[in-house]
């Protein structure tokens, strides 16, 4: 699974993107986040304020209950501030 992080989520995780294989028990975005938080303090900090985190799967906005598959591109980022 390709994971991408932007803005302060990138800074806190210390990486812009990575390929990871979550355990088979991880079926939804929220379960993915819980698993990522076990990978280290940077992830813990990145996902400590979930009301300020948005998620896109395959470049479309989705809710955190969305079901994910192994080939998905999952991106985490703060609310957008362009324009």
């Amino acid at each position, binding site marked *: 699974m390709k994971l991408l992080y932007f803005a302060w989520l990138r800074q806190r995780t210390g990486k812009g993107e990575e390929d990871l294989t979550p355990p088979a028990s991880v079926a939804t975005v929220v379960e993915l986040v819980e698993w990522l938080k076990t990978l280290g303090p940077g992830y813990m900090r990145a996902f400590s304020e979930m009301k300020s985190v948005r998620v896109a799967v395959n*470049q479309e906005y989705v809710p955190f209950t969305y079901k994910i598959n192994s080939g998905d591109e999952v991106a985490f980022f703060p609310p957008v501030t362009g324009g």
Partner: protein
Amino acid sequence: MIKVQREDFDLGREIDALTRGRHGIGGVASFVGLVRDLAGDPSTGAQAVRSMTLEHYPGMTEKQLADIEAEAHRRWKLDASLIIHRYGRLDPGDRIVLVVCASPHRQAALEACAFLIDWLKTKAPFWKLEETPTGAEWVDAREADDAAAARWRRDQAAE
């Protein structure tokens, strides 16, 4: 048409290119967004912004912009439209974003232009990192921007 680019743009040239030879167009509406130094507004209490860096999500940015442009064409009769959004390092006064809508009549062009900039601000994956005298800070999203975008949802529901 969607362009996500580092380079600056020229409003006159972009409008010329978009409308040349299309004689059904009766009106062109445009919006240009600039990097604002919030310290210029005493009510914000903000620090001076020296410059900012716009980060984006390549791929998703183009996809989201194309989606909202297609939505504008479904809602209004437009002959042509253009969205340019810059990324990278920008200074106060620099142009960040351009929206152009061309239509046989002014109302569609003006409304579609307002719709596009409102929706772009809440959908397009860009993030502003401002450099201030005390360090770099990520800009927080504004509730007013969500409200501006929500206005168009209510309009749609009323139809």
